C-alpha cells in the first residue's frame, strides 16, 4: 500500500496557483526527499498531506485514509514536524512531550524522547524561551512519540547546528530502518542525498521529476569530473581522451589529466588511456551532486 498518494491535486490561494495537477505516490517504507526553489509549493503540498490546507482539486490519501474526511486517523499514525509553528505558552519542553504522549495515548518516557532529540536536561524550561534550533528539536521529539508509521518533516534542518543536522539524519535513518516512511522537504541537498531513496523536484507548483538520485543523474545527464594520474605524461593519452565522444579535457597538470564527462563515460576514459599504453597510478571521480542535478532540473539554486 502506498503511504502517500496525491491524485490530480491543485491548490490555489485566490488567483495564485500554488500547485498544478500534482500526481505523486510515495511507497511504504520509502525515504522521499522533496525539493524545489522557494515558493515552489513544497510546504503547500505538506500542508495538504496533514490537512492544514485543503486542495482546490484532487484527492490526497495518506496511509489509506482520505485526509479531508479523516485527518485525525492520518495524524494518529503520522509524526509531523510542520513549518511556521511556535511552542505553546507557559509550557515546559517536557510538558510538550507529555502532551504529545497523551494525545497519542502512547506509553513513552518523556525524558527518553527529549534525550533522543538532544534536549536532555532542558525539559524543565519553558519552551517559548527555547532557541529556534531547540524548538525544532522539541517539535521533532513530539513527532517521534509512539514511533509513527509515517514521518512528514517540513524543512527539518531549519535552525539546527551541525550536531542537530547529523542527529536529524540519524533519526531519519533509524525511522527508515524500522520500516517507517519518511517524507521530507529540505534545502540542504547533501542531507537529502545522504538519506533519500527518491527525490521529487517541484518548481512553480509543478512536479518536474521524481526519481532516485542515480536515476536523475542518468536522465539529466549532468557531467561529473574524472582526474587520472599517470606514471608519466603520455601525449598520446591526452589525444586519445580528446577523441572520445562526450568527453572534454578540462586540464592537464603534470601527469594528471582532468576530464569532464557523464558518469557513464568515465570507464571509457580510463580504457582509452590504458589502450594508449599509459599506466594509471591513481584516479579520482567527482560525481554530479544533487545540487548540480537540482540546478540542471530547475534552472535555479536551492
Amino acid at each position, binding site marked *: 500500500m502506498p503511504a502517500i498518494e496525491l491524485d490530480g491535486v491543485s491548490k490555489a490561494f485566490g488567483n495564485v496557483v500554488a500547485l498544478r495537477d500534482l500526481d505523486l505516490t510515495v511507497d511504504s517504507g520509502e525515504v522521499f526527499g522533496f525539493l524545489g526553489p522557494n515558493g515552489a509549493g513544497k510546504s503547500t503540498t505538506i500542508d495538504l498531506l496533514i490537512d492544514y490546507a485543503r486542495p482546490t482539486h484532487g484527492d490526497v490519501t495518506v496511509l489509506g485514509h482520505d485526509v479531508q474526511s479523516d485527518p*485525525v486517523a492520518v*495524524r494518529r499514525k503520522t509524526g509531523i514536524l510542520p513549518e511556521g509553528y511556535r511552542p505553546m505558552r507557559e*509550557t515546559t519542553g517536557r510538558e510538550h512531550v507529555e502532551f504529545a504522549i497523551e494525545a497519542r495515548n502512547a506509553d513513552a518516557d518523556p525524558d527518553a524522547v527529549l534525550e533522543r532529540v538532544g534536549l536532555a536536561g532542558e525539559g524543565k524550561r519553558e519552551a517559548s524561551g527555547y532557541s529556534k534550533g531547540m524548538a525544532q528539536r522539541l517539535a521533532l521529539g513530539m513527532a517521534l512519540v509512539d514511533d509513527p508509521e509515517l514521518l512528514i518533516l517540513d524543512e527539518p534542518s531549519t535552525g539546527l547546528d551541525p550536531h542537530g543536522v547529523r542527529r536529524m539524519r540519524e533519526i531519519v535513518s533509524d525511522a527508515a530502518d524500522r520500516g517507517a516512511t519518511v517524507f521530507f522537504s529540505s534545502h540542504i541537498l547533501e542531507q537529502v542525498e545522504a538519506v533519500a531513496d527518491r527525490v521529487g523536484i517541484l518548481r512553480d507548483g509543478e512536479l518536474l521529476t521524481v526519481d532516485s538520485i542515480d536515476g536523475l543523474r542518468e536522465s539529466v545527464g549532468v557531467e561529473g569530473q574524472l582526474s587520472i594520474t599517470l606514471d608519466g605524461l603520455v601525449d598520446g593519452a591526452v589525444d586519445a581522451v580528446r577523441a572520445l565522444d562526450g568527453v572534454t579535457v578540462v586540464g592537464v597538470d603534470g601527469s594528471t589529466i582532468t576530464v569532464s564527462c557523464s558518469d557513464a563515460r568515465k570507464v571509457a576514459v580510463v580504457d582509452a588511456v590504458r589502450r594508449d599504453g599509459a599506466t594509471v597510478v591513481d584516479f579520482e571521480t567527482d560525481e554530479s551532486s544533487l545540487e548540480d542535478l537540482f540546478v540542471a532540473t530547475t534552472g535555479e539554486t536551492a
Partner: protein
Amino acid sequence: MSWRLVARQGVRESWRNWELPGTIIAFALIFGLIGYWTGPAALGSGNDGSALFGLLAGTMLVLVPATAVTIAHDDVAGRREDGRLRLLLGQPISRRSIVLGQYLATVVTIVSAVLVAVSTGLFIASVRAGELAPPEMAATLVGAGVLMGLSYLGIGIAISTALKTTNFSGTLAFAAFLGFTFVWQVLPRSLLWVVDRFVDVPSNPWWLVYVDTMSPVLATGRLIAPGTSYEALAGTDDVTVTAFAGVVLCWWIVVLPMLALMRFERTDL
C-alpha cells in the same frame, strides 16, 4: 477525548499567565468593594437588598461580557496567527476538539470569576450589614453571570474561530460587546422612532420585545428574572418571550460557535 487535553492545557496556560487568577482576583475585589460600601444600607434596616442587587447586576452586565470577549477573541485566532495551532494540530487532535477545549478553558475562567465574585460581594455585604443576603439573590446573580458569560464567550469564540488574525477578531469582538451590551438597548427603538417620523407612538409593536431579546444581556434577564423578584434584569412574565430568550441564548452559546467551527473545519490554517 482530546478536547479534555486541550481544555486542560488551556486552563494551565491561563493559570500560569495570570489570566485565570487575575480575573478572579479583579472580579472579587470589585464585587467585594461594592458589598463593603452598599451592604449595610441595602441589607440592613429591613431592606430587601434590591439596591445591592441592582449595583452588582449592573456591574456584572458590563464586566462579564467585556472580560468574556477579551479572553475568547484570542483563543483560536491567536494560536492560528502565531503558529501554536500548527503544533497542536500536528497531534491526532481534531479542529473541533481544539475549539471545544479552548471554549471550555475560557468557561472555567469566567464561571470561577463569577462564583468567587458573587460569593465575595454578598459575604462582605452580609458581614457588614449583620444580615444574610437572600440565597435567591446569590442564585440569580450567579445564573445571570454564567449565562451572560457563556453567551459572550460563544460570540468571542465564534469570532476567534472564524477569523485568522487577532486584529480582526479583537475589533469585531469589541464591536459585538459594545453593540449587544449598550447599543442594542436603544437601537431598535431609535430606528422605530426614525421610521415613525420622530413621533413617539403610544405602544410598541409586538415584535419589538423579541428584537430586544436578541441581545444576550436582555435575553439573560428575561430568562432569569421571571423566577425572581428583581426587576433590575428587565424580566417578563410572558412565557413566549421567556422561551424565545432561551432560544436566543442557545444560539449565542451553542449554535453560533458551531457554525464558526463548521467554517473553520473547511478552511486553511
